[in-house]
């Protein structure tokens, strides 16, 4: 059975290779090939999953060693896979949602002349993401980690002729590279500490080193997670990443890739468990981001950017939960999976709306669409109810558990984190209701596009609506299915460990508070956007609104300090190199050997003569030496 693991990666990798190198011949069939290979990977995942279910909880992990990657003295890096319950969860999510989004893209990208290439990139992404989650060591994980970064770069910048898309792609890659620095340093620290960076040995002997070392490793891993998962302070790229085609936003920048940071932290649980300081920083990052993202989400009029803010915020929840240790690991992953369903569904719904509205993204120019796009409305609506945590739907179970776990952390910390998580739930309810109302309810505020075409909203083709329906199904039922009988807890517990913690509040109280937060959030949004008509031109807004529209000024800070500062730095260095370094070295040489005079002469055309005479001289010397030998 373990020999099948490599097949998970091989199928989409083959697809990427064929589609990207295949040329125009494949333009007509390429998307089917890409979709079929994604589905094949999903089927392999299902076979492995069934097999895994048939085994006892403790010996479910499978290993497959392919070959030694970098064999160097004292350094062992392998291409080897490990498939345990945690990896399995990701494999199913990635290939399942991935396949749905391939299907959706067939319709969504129908009129794009580079559709074949798009599917090639999507396949490449799947392969890299699968490597990331089934690697059995940190270096191979890093391979997948950067691979998804590349796929993300290519897909954000898919419409490269748009300067904004090209800039967004570059920004995403660069910000991620800052995080990658963290991952590199973490791996180097592991190597000097443990002599290896394979999961097994590192995680088993994590307790044998000093807490300081573990804290350092933990913080570096967190830096990496912040980059990939768009957490403060490396979150700035995610909003811009919405320049990519919408299926990409759904798959990569909502459901899968951006959750890689959560995977990294949960996978490295043994390190974080022994490094409470690092854990504290993790929960702070999570808590800050969950509020940050939510605030940004409230202010954006661009439907995708509002959803991107929401993604940031929801991943903040997951990071927060992961920072809680064994109390939270399982719920971080559970929320990750349910979020994968409803956020992918919401993005696909947004894409469907844009498809029907001449690619308009400004929600102020939507309104009243529920009658024109009933399937989109219903599936989006179910996703909406799931994300705000409407009782009984997926998000309710997973988010509620995280809020409970935050309180269960205990002490002042627990109260603060729990309250932040509750506040976040209220804001989530607010901004998502706002999106819902502005898009599907109220008056029509439709505007003709730049070329003067009036929008004629219509339901999307079946290839697009079916994935939305499937995802809506997951948004409704997945949470309940996981929560009933503690199925999800029992499934992951052998890998991540589990601890109930000591909640000062009863579960019922927390649930009650969550529902109150939900009602308050929805109520305020209704009062602001449901009862009153929505202006087509955004009002000026308060200072906070204006700041939130600009991503709480973080981008402006980056621009002034990093971009402008960097430009000045490089420009002055170019000057220094030209006049100072070059000048000083030339000058020193000149003063030593009087070279400058000669140099000038050489420039005046003597150079060739000089070199020829040198060549002649060398020839004479060689001849002479040969002669000497002969004599």
């Amino acid at each position, binding site marked *: 059975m373990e020999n099948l693991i490599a097949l998970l990666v091989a199928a989409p990798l083959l697809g990427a290779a064929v589609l*990207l190198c295949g040329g125009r011949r494949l333009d007509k069939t390429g998307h089917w090939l890409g979709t079929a290979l994604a589905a094949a990977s999903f089927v392999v995942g299902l076979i492995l999953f069934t097999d895994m279910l048939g085994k006892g909880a403790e010996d479910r992990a499978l290993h497959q060693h392919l070959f*030694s*990657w970098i*064999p*160097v*003295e*004292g*350094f062992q890096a392998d*291409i080897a896979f490990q498939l345990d319950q945690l990896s399995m969860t990701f494999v199913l999510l990635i290939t399942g949602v991935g396949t749905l989004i391939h299907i959706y893209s067939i319709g969504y990208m129908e009129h794009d002349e580079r559709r074949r290439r798009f599917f090639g990139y999507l396949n490449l992404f799947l392969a890299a993401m699968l490597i990331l989650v089934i690697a059995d060591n940190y*270096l191979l994980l*890093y391979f997948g*980690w*950067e691979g998804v970064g*590349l796929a993300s770069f290519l897909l954000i*910048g898919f419409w*490269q*002729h748009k*300067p904004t*898309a090209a800039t967004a792609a*570059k920004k995403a*890659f*660069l910000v991620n*590279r800052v995080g*990658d*620095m963290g991952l*590199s*340093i973490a*791996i*180097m*620290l592991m190597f*000097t*500490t443990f*002599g*290896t960076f394979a999961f*097994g*040995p*590192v995680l*088993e002997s994590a307790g044998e*080193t000093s807490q300081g070392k573990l804290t350092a490793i933990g913080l570096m891993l967190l830096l990496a997670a912040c980059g990939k998962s768009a957490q403060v302070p490396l979150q700035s790229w995610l909003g811009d990443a919405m320049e990519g085609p919408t299926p990409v936003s759904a798959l990569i920048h909502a459901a899968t890739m951006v959750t890689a940071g959560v995977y990294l932290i949960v996978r490295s649980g043994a390190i974080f468990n022994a490094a409470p300081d690092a854990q504290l920083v993790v929960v702070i990052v999570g808590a800050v981001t969950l509020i940050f993202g939510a605030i940004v989400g409230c202010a954006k009029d661009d439907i995708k950017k509002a959803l991107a803010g929401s993604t940031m915020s929801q991943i903040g929840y997951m990071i927060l939960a992961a920072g809680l240790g064994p109390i939270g690991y399982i719920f971080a992953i559970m929320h990750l999976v349910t979020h994968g369903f409803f956020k992918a569904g919401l993005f696909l719904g947004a894409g469907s709306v844009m498809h029907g509205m001449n690619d308009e993204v400004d929600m102020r120019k939507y309104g009243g669409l529920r009658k024109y796009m009933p399937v989109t409305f219903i599936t989006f609506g179910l996703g909406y109810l799931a994300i705000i945590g409407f009782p009984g739907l997926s998000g309710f179970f997973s988010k509620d558990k995280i809020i409970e776990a935050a309180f269960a952390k205990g002490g002042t910390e627990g109260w603060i984190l729990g309250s932040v998580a509750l506040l976040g739930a209220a804001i989530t309810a607010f901004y998502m209701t706002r999106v819902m109302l502005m898009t599907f309810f109220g008056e029509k505020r439709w505007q003709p596009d730049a070329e003067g075409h009036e929008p004629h909203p219509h339901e999307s083709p079946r290839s697009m609506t079916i994935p939305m329906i499937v995802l809506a199904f997951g948004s409704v039922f997945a949470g309940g299915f996981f929560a009933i009988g503690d199925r999800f807890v029992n499934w992951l517990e052998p890998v991540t460990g589990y601890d109930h913690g000591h909640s000062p509040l009863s579960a019922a109280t927390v649930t009650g508070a969550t529902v109150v937060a939900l009602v308050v959030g929805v109520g305020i949004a209704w009062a602001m956007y449901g009862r009153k008509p929505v202006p087509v031109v955004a009002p000026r807004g308060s200072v906070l609104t204006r700041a939130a529209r600009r991503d709480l000024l973080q981008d402006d800070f980056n621009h002034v300090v990093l971009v402008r500062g*960097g430009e000045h730095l*490089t420009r002055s*260095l170019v000057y220094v*190199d030209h006049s100072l*370094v*070059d000048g*000083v*070295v*030339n000058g020193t*040489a000149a003063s030593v050997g009087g070279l400058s005079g000669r*140099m000038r002469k*050489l420039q005046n055309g003597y*150079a060739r003569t000089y*070199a020829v005479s*040198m*060549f002649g001289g*060398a020839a004479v010397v*060689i001849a002479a*030496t040969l002669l*000497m*030998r002969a004599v």
Partner: protein
Amino acid sequence: MSFPLLTATAALPAIGAIATAAVPAARRTAAKWLALLFSLGTLVLAAVVFLRFEPGGDRYQLTESRAWIADFGVRYELGVDGIGVALLGLTALLIPFVIAAAWHDADPLETTSTRWRPTQGFFALILMVEAMVILSFVATDVFLFYILFEAMLIPMYFLIGGFGDRAHTGTDESAAAQRSYAAVKFLLYNLAGGLIMLAAVIGLYVVAGSFSLSEIAEARANGSLEMATSTERWLFLGFFFAFAVKAPLWPLHTWLPNAMGEATAPVAVLITAIVDKVGTFAMLRFCLGLFPEASKWATPVVITLALISIVYGALLAVGQRDIKRLIAYASISHFGFIILGIFAMTSQGQSGATLYMVNHGISTAALLLVAGFLITRRGSRLIADYGGVQKVAPVLAGTFLIGGLATLSLPGLAPFVSEFLVLVGTFSAYPVAGIIATSGIVLAALYVLVLYQRTMTGPVQESVRSMPDLRARELAVAVPLIAVLIFLGVFPKPLTEVVNPAVEHTMSDVQKKDPQPEVEAAK
């Protein structure tokens, strides 16, 4: 005596050079094919060397030894170790691509000209450089190495000064002046380095009484040759200076951007991917091998300079407006990594540095040769003159991107393996230096992606609208290089196998042991 395989490998391109130069003026195309054929023959011989080399065997293999200048104990002594094999392989691999990429670079401006001879000269010079570089990688006699180290400047000088990039701004006269300035600067910098090295070579002979690497090493090992600390240091500095100019190490780097900017792209590849490697190769073989104590003494300074090179080179690359100068500064940054790995003196660092030399050669060749195709099409080296190329020439843009991704060390492509080894090797011995060097991975992404964005993406510029995509000859250059990059990125074992034992020898030369991990993890 068995067949002198190493001599043959070096002699074949030399013979090819003479044969190419002798082709009549009107038969330009024949001369090109002849040069290509000889370079391919050399590649075959290099492959034989690679296969005949036994990783577990003696340190120097396929040895040859003949008396040469008996009065001074100079011998024609050859032999390869794993590092030499790797670099010999790199050289033999790249030259056919350089020749194929340069196919039209030395054509006469008026195609009807029948008396145009420089075409033959151009390809003959390339083969001449190949011969000398190969011989320098296998020379185990210090004097022989020195001669080659200096002699290769001459064909390089003519290649830079005589066959400049036809894409230039300003008048032909000013371009010619810039070109000759670049060529002279190249020559003088390297001559100055060589002169100091010559003094050190003579000094070494005075002290050791021999030029033979193996004899000196043996004498040092059995104690019959004692060097005073100060003598060793002076000699080390003499050698190191020459290699640091060639490598090039900050602040001796300023000749490289001029030379690479003015030369044609294939010649720029010759400079940075091949000839400069002699410098870093020689640091490993001569500085560490002959003067281990002095090398350790100099380590803090060398590591500092290497770190400056890494960061400084990358920042300057970001600030460049000229595509080839940008790549030149990127190379300076990469040479910083190589030197860092060498002087970190750990197994991973040195294996990494050796792989880095090979991988940097291939990745830079891929990026620079494709950049050359781009530049030839538009007739400009300035980044600002491009935009939207991706739309009109997607294959060109794609190969350019892969070359760029290799340059920024993306996992899956060969340079990642070497860069990570260098970083780990450095970090385990000098954690702070390792962390500073890691910043290079962000900066590399910056200069590569900025270059890609400005040239390839965005609205299609009027001047590139009718740009053709890669032709068959150009594809034949780009595709195999990319294939090698992917292969060595996923499966570098064939290379590490030959390099590892050589690194062990160097580690025992400098009497260094790898730092041990704090926790002996459960295996």
